[in-house]
């Protein structure tokens, strides 16, 4: 592993690596602690700002394939970490900016009290902190602890309404994710066993770079078992078959900004763990093993998502299944594993995060406007609320993979890589399924957007305006997604470096 020295000192790197975890936790604690004069909802933008800032500093501090370590290897940042941090920060910025509008509406309708708003902020920031910890973990065990922490923290966000549906969603979410993640921990334990048996000392036997560097010494049979469990377990949290059943329920029941975070980045953060595992697997077992597992999971997930999108009548669940579709594309890209595919995967994670965040946040506004999540009851959205309709429509267009949004480039990259890597049949089958999902998603969305305003007697035909507080975050998110599609700009070097790291070189 080439570790060119970074330009940061030990103290500075310890500080900069702690910021993305500590600042969200501190912000959450502030919300929890100050009871008399509740801080404004806009304070929550501090966390994404801190995450983004630390991401930018880290990107500048380590050009090329370098890495920054702190706290004895517990926290570690390389190009993949920085990329994921930037994605988390960007998505969190959009989701946190959408928070005040969501809370304002909840307060106006009497759903949210001071206490629930406080709990909301506390949990959302703890969620952000846990996700950053998962991204920054240099140790597979710490990574696991952080990802399990996201499950615990978000459980009450999913079940915040306390209705039958939301309690059910929260229960399924916690039970399936915790059990799935537990299997991943078993995989980590087995990898640790193989590492110890290969003579790696206890302190570093779970460190990702050490495992990659000594992968050829790991016992193949044990590693095979461990990697399969790792992919199964973290795949559960990433919404991959077979432990996916929690995803549509949890995403449809959580508050819109939280759904956005869960769908936009949490899935990707757990998939990043799978990507890390794949690097170890490729080095220890050759590329075939993880490729088979991942492509199997990807195709099954894709087939399931496409089938369930066809008959979908609930737009939040529709978005959730679309997340599964995109995660399976990402898994497919990871399975293909050529440099082009790896770059496309990272780009897809970013593009999907941004587009899905905008889609979920606007779906929250639609829910507020129409008080239903049934697709059939939302007609003529463009006529009723042009701004909102445009944002939702554009987000879905982005998710469908149209240019100029970045998902176009990344999907094209994955498909091209698939055909050149000799996985033509697999890719063709996946394309067919994506096309099905495309048709379903497009059909349902046009049904929601278009059509005349159903004019009931007595309702004013004045279109509802989306205020700047609600509209601006959506516009920024869409713009960012489109800009990323046109050019990766200053991120190109970072993307190249991250691609190299995921190649295991």
């Amino acid at each position: 592993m080439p570790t060119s020295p970074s330009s940061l000192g030990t103290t500075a790197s310890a500080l900069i690596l702690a910021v993305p975890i500590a600042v969200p936790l501190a912000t959450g604690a502030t919300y929890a602690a100050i009871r008399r004069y509740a801080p404004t909802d806009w304070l929550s933008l501090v966390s994404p700002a801190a995450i983004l800032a630390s991401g930018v500093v880290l990107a500048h501090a380590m050009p090329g394939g370098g890495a920054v370590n702190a706290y004895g290897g517990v926290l570690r940042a390389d190009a993949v970490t920085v990329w994921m941090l930037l994605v988390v920060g960007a998505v969190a910025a959009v989701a946190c900016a959408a928070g005040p509008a969501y809370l304002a509406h909840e307060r106006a309708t009497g759903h949210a009290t001071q206490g629930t708003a406080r709990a909301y902020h506390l949990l959302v920031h703890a969620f952000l902190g846990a996700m950053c910890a998962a991204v920054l973990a240099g140790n597979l065990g710490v990574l696991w602890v952080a990802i399990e922490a996201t499950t615990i923290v978000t459980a009450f966000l999913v079940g915040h309404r306390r209705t039958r549906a939301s309690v059910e969603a929260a229960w399924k979410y916690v039970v399936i994710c915790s059990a799935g993640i537990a299997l991943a921990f078993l995989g980590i334990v087995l990898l640790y066993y193989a590492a110890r048996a290969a003579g790696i000392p206890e302190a570093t036997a779970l460190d990702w770079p050490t495992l990659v560097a000594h992968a050829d010494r790991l016992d193949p049979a044990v590693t095979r078992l461990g990697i399969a469990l790792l992919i199964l377990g973290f795949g559960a949290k990433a919404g991959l078959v077979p432990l996916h059943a929690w995803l549509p329920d949890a995403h449809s029941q959580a508050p819109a900004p939280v759904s956005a975070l869960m769908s936009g980045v949490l899935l990707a953060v757990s998939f990043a763990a799978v990507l890390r595992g794949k690097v170890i697997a490729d080095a220890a077992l050759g590329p075939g093993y993880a490729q088979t597992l991942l492509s199997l999971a990807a195709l099954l997930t894709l087939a399931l998502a496409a089938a369930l999108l066809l008959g979908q009548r609930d737009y939040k669940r529709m978005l959730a299944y679309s997340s599964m579709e995109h995660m399976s594309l990402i898994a497919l890209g990871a399975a293909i594993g050529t440099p082009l595919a790896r770059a496309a995967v990272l780009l897809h994670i970013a593009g999907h995060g941004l587009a899905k965040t905008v889609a979920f946040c606007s779906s929250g506004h639609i829910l507020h406007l129409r008080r239903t999540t049934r697709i059939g009851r939302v007609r003529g959205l463009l006529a009723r609320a042009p701004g909102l309709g445009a944002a939702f429509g554009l987000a879905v267009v982005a998710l469908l993979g149209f240019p100029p949004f970045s998902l176009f480039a990344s999907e094209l990259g994955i498909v091209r890589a698939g055909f050149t890597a000799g996985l033509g049949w697999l890719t063709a089958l996946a394309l067919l399924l994506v096309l099905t999902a495309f048709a379903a998603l497009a059909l349902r969305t046009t049904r929601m957007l278009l059509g005349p305003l159903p004019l009931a007697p007595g309702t004013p035909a004045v279109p509802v305006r989306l205020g700047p507080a609600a509209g601006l975050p959506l516009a920024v998110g869409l713009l960012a997604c489109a800009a990323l599609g046109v050019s990766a700009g200053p991120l190109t070097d970072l993307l190249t470096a991250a691609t190299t790291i995921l190649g295991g070189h």
Partner: protein
Amino acid sequence: MRPMSTGTYTQLLDLACGAFLLAAVVVLWRRELVAIVRTFALQGIALAAIPLLIGLHEQRWGLIAVATGIGALRAGLLPYLMRRALAALTPSGGEEHHYEEDVSEARETQPLVNVAASLLTAAALTLLAYAVARPLVALNPGPAARALPVGLAVVLIGLFVLATRRRALAQVVGFLLLDNGITATAFLAASGVPLIVELGVSFDVLLAVLVLQILTTRMRTAFGTTDIDDLRELHD
């Protein structure tokens, strides 16, 4: 303190593993949630005995401290939490008798797979665990590694309980069995994961159980029962 003789160590370790596996089977066997929770607590003691024995054998004091912590958590705190949740779900019929109030909250009356079939499945799962664990045992043959299949068998039995039991609390026990199995695997395979990870995992498990306990109470409020089969609000 002098190290334990290898023969005694192997005997006691095998005994602890046997008790550990037996407790998982008994959980599958019993229907009363009170008995299931008690069995789970006993399993926690057997689990804590594993690092204790390894620690005594290899004279590693840290491992003995970990064993104490594991014992306190798995045999003390977690069963206590479960018992409290159970007490909250089943009102003691003291001052006011509700004849229509059934006692089914405290029992796993109708598991998806009946108990006899569950027990036979557990037998099959144990054999599967032995088959799967063969490369693991071969990697580092020794008394501890030879007992590795026990940990995997408990993991599989835990998954089975999770998948087939219908009471919310029985599912929580299934999850905890799964977790106990993984912890046992970690100790038997590599004398446990590094301390920071062990602490984080224990803390996460504790929080997960707390969250599930609160959700069980909410489920009881929202649905009037803790039968998972009644969760049918969300589907496609």
